[in-house]
């Protein structure tokens, strides 16, 4: 019995060692997002609280904690309260399989990439539950839009993942990174990287695809009725999801924890640093795009997803498969 308690304690320690840095980095990343957004528009962005305004997000979080949580009288209370909790939990749970280096991973499972894909496809429930339980027009419309959008872009993300898996021959995230030792997949699969990046924008409801919360039409979309800490949980979950998509992109295409070139001064740095740098680079692109691109119209969004990305990634899948087959480069696997 004592043995089990010891194992449990160890696991909880490891989980906290992963979760606390992620929550802190989500706070920092929100600050980075707002700073980049401000600099693009020739403003300063948040720069008052703490050095360079670094503690701005903590101050915001404190503000949210002390605000009253308002639950609409006609809302379905259980589902209304569950929705932000589900969003936040799913965004954090996915980090369990992300490898930061060859040893530093919470659980190294065989079907890591499928797990990531499954958790990110469950993310739609937080939004759809929040929108429906609010029992009001704007949140409901926002939730329906967002659900349709996320389901459509998941399809092309799935096919892009199959593209990468064809080159790797394994569903394990570690194997996917180690297969890029000689050549990052961003070079042979560059068009797929672009499509993945744009689909990730749509999957996380970021501008230019932030139609679920288009403030000109829907007030704040599915978050309209939320206030205080529950709103903050939606918000943190959204940013944790964005970081997750960045981590997924860097694992699938940018070689995960591998240094740019495996030569003397570069491979001295511990591998998690490379992983973090790549995640930050992708996040910087996310922030830039938020600042410089106008919002899509809804029919354009659907057309892009179904009529352009899906056929394109399917054709590229056939091309990749035929190339690998013809030149006998298919991964042999360990069986």
């Amino acid at each position, binding site marked *: 019995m004592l043995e089990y308690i010891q194992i449990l304690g160890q696991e909880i320690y490891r989980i906290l060692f992963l979760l606390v840095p992620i929550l802190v980095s989500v706070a920092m990343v929100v600050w980075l997002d707002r700073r980049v957004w401000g600099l693009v528009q020739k403003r300063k962005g948040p720069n008052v609280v703490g050095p360079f305004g670094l503690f701005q997000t903590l101050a915001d979080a404190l503000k949210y904690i002390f605000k009253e949580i308002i639950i609409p009288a006609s809302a379905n209370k259980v589902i209304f309260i569950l929705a932000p909790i589900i969003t936040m939990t799913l965004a954090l749970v996915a980090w369990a399989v992300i490898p930061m280096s060859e040893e530093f991973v919470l659980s190294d499972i065989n079907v890591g990439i499928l797990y990531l894909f499954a958790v990110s496809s*469950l993310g739609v429930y937080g939004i759809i539950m929040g929108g429906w339980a609010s029992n009001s027009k704007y949140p409901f419309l926002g939730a329906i839009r967002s659900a349709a959008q996320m*389901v459509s872009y998941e399809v092309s993300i799935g096919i892009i993942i199959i593209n990468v898996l064809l080159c790797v021959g394994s569903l394990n995230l570690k194997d996917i990174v180690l297969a890029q030792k000689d050549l990052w997949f961003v070079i042979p699969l560059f068009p797929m990287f672009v499509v993945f990046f744009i689909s990730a924008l749509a999957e996380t409801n970021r501008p230019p695809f932030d139609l679920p919360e288009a403030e000109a039409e829907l007030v704040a979309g599915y978050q309209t009725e939320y206030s205080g800490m529950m709103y903050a949980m939606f918000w943190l979950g959204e940013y944790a999801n964005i970081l997750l998509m960045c981590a997924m992109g860097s694992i699938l295409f940018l070689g995960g924890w591998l240094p740019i070139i495996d030569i003397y001064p570069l491979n001295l740095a511990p591998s998690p640093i490379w992983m973090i740098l790549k995640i930050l680079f992708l996040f910087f692109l996310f922030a830039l795009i938020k600042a410089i691109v106008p919002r899509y119209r809804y029919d354009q969004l659907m057309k892009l997803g179904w009529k352009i990305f899906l056929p394109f990634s399917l054709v590229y899948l056939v091309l990749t498969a035929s190339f690998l087959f013809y030149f006998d480069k298919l991964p042999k696997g360990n069986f």
Partner: protein
Amino acid sequence: MIIHSIFFYFFSIIAIFSSLMVITSRNTINSVFFLILDFISVGCLFIMVGAEFLGMIILIVYVGAVAVLFLFVVMMLNVAEQKNSWFTGKETKHIHSGLIVGNLILLELLVVVGGWKYKDDLMSSSTLILSNTSNTHQLGLVMYTDYVLYFQLAGIILLLSMIGAILLTFRERVGVKRQSYIKQISRNPSSAVELKDVESNKGVTIDD
């Protein structure tokens, strides 16, 4: 081993409880949410058995896509009131057909579970090699070699049903303006602007 059985009973109790709640809860939205809970716990049971690929596929396909469409339909059609009338109203004609279908499904389940005992006599076991390779590899080895015909047939059935659904719901609308990117990009000043001399008191007709 104790931990394993504790987890097994945890997930299976949740699965059974939520499947009961699917058919007994009055609010249709709640039934759909319980259905999702059921799918998730069945997926967890698959993972516990060691079929991690199947478990994840259940999560992705059923929970991530099918159940979302269920929710869509239930939310849009407002089925909640209809279902209430089945319980309280005098319309009992649904119950007969429901009973017949339910009993048929029960019978089929009995046949399947009963036939499990004699499965070695009824069908030849496939070339599944139970070694230490991951079950994704094993599935791939069997599905695309021995069962490739069934696999493709299933795909064709799905394609046919998709085409059928589109055909049934398709209606051509007139008077809808569609956006064409190529038309928009290939506009130039000479084709976009037209100068016309208008005689006074005549006017011109402009078509777009």
